[in-house]
C-alpha cells in the first residue's frame, strides 16, 4: 500500500504526502475514537495494544525499543545525555588534580570542589595544548614522519576540552536561569515601588484637593447665609412697613 508509488509524484516540485493519509477517513477516525473510549485510555497514551490492520496507521508508532533512532543521518536517543568520550571513541584524559585523584567520587568534598577543579582542569588542558604544539613543531623540524602521533595528541586534547565544556553546560544553564529570575525579581520590585510612589503622590493630591474644596465650600456657604439673613430681614422690614401702611389706611 505504502509502496505503490504514483508515477506523478516523481515529477512534482514537492513530494507527495505519504499514502497512509488515505486511511484517515471519517469512519476510521470514529472507529478508533470508539476503540480508545472502550479501552479507557487517556489522551496522553493514545496507543492501543491491538488494533485492526486497517487502523494501524491512525496511531503513532511505538517508541524505539532501544531508545535510539536516526533522522536525516543523525543519531538520536530518548535520553538526552552527553555521550562519554569513550562512547564517541576518543581517549578520555584522566583528571590530574590531586584532590580528585586520591578521593573517591562519592565523597562530598569532591562534589563541592567539582567545578573549581573543572576550571583548573581546563586551564591545564589548555596549557598542555600549547606545550604539545611546541612539541609538534620540534618533531616536525627534526623528524616529520613522527608528527602524526603528536597531532593525534593535540586532537585528543581538543576533544577533551570541548567535552569538559559541554559537561559544564547544564551548570551554566542553571546559573543563567537563576540570573534571569533575579533580573525579573528586580524588575518587579522596581515596578512595585514606582507604583507605590505614584499612589502616594495621587493620595497627597487628593488630600490637598479635599481640603481645598472644603475651604471653598465653607467660604461660599457663609456669604449665602448672610444674604439669606439680609433678605429675611428686608422682608421682615417690608412686612412691618406694609402693616403700618395698612393700619394708616384703614
Amino acid at each position: 500500500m505504502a509502496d505503490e508509488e504514483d508515477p506523478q509524484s516523481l515529477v512534482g516540485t514537492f513530494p507527495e504526502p505519504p499514502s497512509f493519509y488515505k486511511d484517515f477517513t471519517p469512519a476510521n477516525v470514529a472507529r478508533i475514537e470508539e476503540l480508545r473510549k472502550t479501552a479507557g485510555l487517556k489522551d496522553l497514551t493514545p496507543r492501543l495494544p491491538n488494533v485492526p490492520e486497517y487502523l494501524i496507521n491512525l496511531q503513532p508508532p511505538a517508541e524505539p525499543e532501544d531508545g535510539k533512532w536516526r533522522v536525516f543521518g543523525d543519531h538520536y536517543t530518548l535520553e538526552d545525555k552527553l555521550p562519554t568520550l569513550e562512547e564517541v571513541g576518543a581517549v578520555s584524559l584522566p583528571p590530574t588534580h590531586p584532590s580528585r585523584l586520591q578521593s573517591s567520587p562519592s565523597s562530598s568534598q569532591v562534589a563541592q570542589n567539582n567545578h573549581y577543579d573543572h576550571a583548573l582542569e581546563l586551564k591545564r588542558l589548555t596549557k598542555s595544548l600549547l606545550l604539545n604544539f611546541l612539541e609538534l613543531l620540534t618533531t616536525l623540524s627534526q623528524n616529520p614522519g613522527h608528527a602524526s602521533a603528536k597531532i593525534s595528541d593535540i586532537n585528543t586534547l581538543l576533544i577533551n576540552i570541548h567535552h569538559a565544556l559541554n559537561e559544564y553546560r547544564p551548570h551554566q544553564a542553571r546559573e543563567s536561569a537563576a540570573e534571569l529570575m533575579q533580573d525579573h525579581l528586580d524588575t518587579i520590585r522596581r515596578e512595585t515601588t514606582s507604583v507605590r510612589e505614584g499612589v502616594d503622590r495621587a493620595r497627597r493630591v487628593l488630600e490637598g484637593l479635599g481640603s481645598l474644596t472644603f475651604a471653598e465650600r465653607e467660604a461660599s456657604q457663609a456669604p449665602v447665609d448672610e444674604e439669606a439673613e439680609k433678605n429675611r430681614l428686608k422682608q421682615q422690614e417690608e412686612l412691618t412697613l406694609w402693616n403700618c401702611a395698612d393700619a394708616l389706611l384703614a
Partner: protein
Amino acid sequence: MTDRLTQLQDAVDQLAQQFVAAVHFVHKRHDYQTLGPNDKVREVKPEEMQQTIDPLPAEDFQAGLSELSRDLITKEQQIEYLISMLPGLQNSEEDQEKSIKELEEDLKAAEAQRQEALKEKDEILAELDRVIQSIRRP
C-alpha cells in the same frame, strides 16, 4: 554575544586554527638554509620555486614568527581568562537549586506585593475620578 561557554569553545577552535596557520606559515614562507659549510643551496628555476615555497626576507620571516607566537600566547591567555570567568564556578549544584528555590519564593512574594500595589492604584484612581466629577457638577 553568545554565552561564555560558547565563547570559550570558539576560542579553543580559534587556537586550533592558529596552530594550523602557524605551521602553514613556517612550512611555506621559510627560505632555504645550509646545514653545513660545504652545503650549497641548489639553484632552482623561479617558476619551480613558486610551487613549493614562497620565501619571505629573513627579517620579515622572523617578524612573522614572533607575531604568530605572540598571538598564540595571547589566545591562550584569553582562554584562561574566559575559564576563570565561567559563571558560578564557586556554586555547586545544590547551591544553585537552593538559590533558585529562594528566588522563586521571592518572586512570588514580590508578585503579590505588586498586585497589591496595583489594586491600591486602581482604588486611588477611582477616588480621584469621583472627586473630579464632583467638582465639575455645579
